[in-house]
């Protein structure tokens, strides 16, 4: 028994001397919240318990194999059942498991306590982007991956944050309790940021709660971690944590931008400005299925370039984008794109890649269609 303690002490000493740093890429991150540090500590405690058990069990086994080998004349004991030994080797693992369960349960309980939050953010998974609603603030963000297609195709050198960069990160203040409400508009996604120790399934029809309180300003990256279709690998999560004053300024700016955007619906738009805007919307939202040049991926994702049915029927074109196509991969965009964006992208599609219809769709008409 004393040897066991000595070994445990040695291992504890070693672990202090040579911490298995996550910087080596071999371990999970310590993270930037109290919960993430608790999770990391639990992970390390349980890891070292497993190491000690492994060393003791295999040590005794290999020692016995060697010390009592047959060539030295050892004879096997021939007893059947030994109640005391059996009770001991059943009780010890039981006690170890209970000892591990107590701190683990305390941490889990804390992780599930999303009450008394300072801010509520609704996270909605879409194929393939994240939507962030700052509840009660009237601010909504759509977070699309911003890694250029050329890097993915390999024709351009991959950047530092390859596949882990977005156009609109989730912006959060530090030292505030943020309640995260996770759901999905289509299939099951999962919102995961290792540095926050938050990993929550986004399930259509359900709202899952979690929370975080970030200690340090910074940019924290994660991914969708539930296989959700073709571009599952292309919907990263980026959280930008900043000081409260900065966050307040950002939020005020966003509110203004949202108001300006809403005002944009009422005015008359020209063909060129719609096409210019539509091209951007197309690249972030539509191109993953219908492809960069509108050539599509038939039969699942039809071509838009040179599509006569599309060019002939403007109303049907708008209807498909606004309401989606039931039973197909085409989603409804009435909730995820603004009326201006829908008008712009439809106008773009009707005036790009040789589709020269000259049609101009006004945001006000789309607005009337969505909210008559």
């Amino acid at each position, binding site marked *: 028994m004393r040897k066991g303690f000595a070994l445990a002490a040695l291992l504890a000493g070693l672990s202090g001397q040579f911490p298995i740093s996550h910087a080596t890429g071999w371990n999970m991150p310590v993270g930037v919240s109290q919960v993430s540090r608790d999770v990391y500590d639990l992970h390390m405690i349980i890891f070292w318990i497993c190491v000690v058990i492994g060393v003791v069990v295999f040590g005794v086994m290999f020692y016995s194999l060697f010390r009592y080998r047959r060539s030295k004349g050892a004879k096997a004991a021939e007893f059947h059942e030994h*109640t005391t030994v059996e*009770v001991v080797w*059943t009780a010890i693992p039981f006690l170890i498991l209970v000892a591990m369960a107590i701190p683990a349960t305390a941490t889990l309980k804390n992780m599930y306590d999303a009450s008394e939050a300072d801010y509520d953010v609704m996270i909605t998974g879409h194929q393939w982007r994240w939507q962030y609603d700052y509840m009660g603030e009237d601010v909504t963000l759509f977070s699309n991956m911003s890694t250029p297609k050329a890097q993915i195709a390999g024709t351009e050198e991959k950047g530092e944050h390859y596949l882990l960069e977005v156009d609109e990160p989730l912006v959060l203040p530090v030292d505030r309790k943020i309640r995260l409400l996770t759901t999905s508009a289509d299939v099951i996604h999962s919102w995961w940021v290792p540095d926050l120790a938050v990993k929550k399934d986004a399930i259509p029809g359900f709202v899952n709660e979690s929370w975080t309180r970030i200690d340090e300003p910074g940019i924290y990256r994660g991914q969708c971690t539930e296989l959700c279709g073709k571009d599952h690998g292309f919907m990263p999560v980026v959280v930008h944590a900043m000081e409260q004053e900065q966050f307040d300024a950002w939020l005020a700016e966003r509110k203004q931008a949202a108001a300006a955007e809403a005002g944009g619906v009422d005015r008359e738009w020209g063909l060129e400005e719609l096409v210019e805007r539509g091209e951007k919307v197309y690249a972030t939202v539509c191109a993953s299925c219908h492809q960069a040049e509108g050539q599509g991926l038939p039969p699942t994702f039809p071509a838009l370039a040179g599509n006569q049915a599309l060019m002939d029927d403007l109303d049907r074109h708008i209807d498909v984008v606004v309401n989606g196509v039931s039973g197909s991969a085409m989603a409804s965009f009435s909730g995820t794109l603004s009326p201006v964006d829908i008008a712009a992208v439809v106008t773009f599609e009707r005036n790009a890649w040789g589709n020269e219809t000259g049609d101009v769709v006004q945001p006000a008409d789309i607005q009337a269609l969505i909210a008559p």
Partner: protein
Amino acid sequence: MWDVIKSVLAAFFGVQQDQRRRKDFEQGKPGAFILIGILLAFLLVVIVFAVALMAAG
């Protein structure tokens, strides 16, 4: 009765003396073991539930 309870608890734990096992199979009634087994399983659930409530509490 007490012997049946002890045997059922030994089964819960997963360790039983060979001598006692033989005795149970020779003299015990199956119905008694099943009844005590169900009652003790219910008691176990109640205990786990109570512990969970206390921990959450």
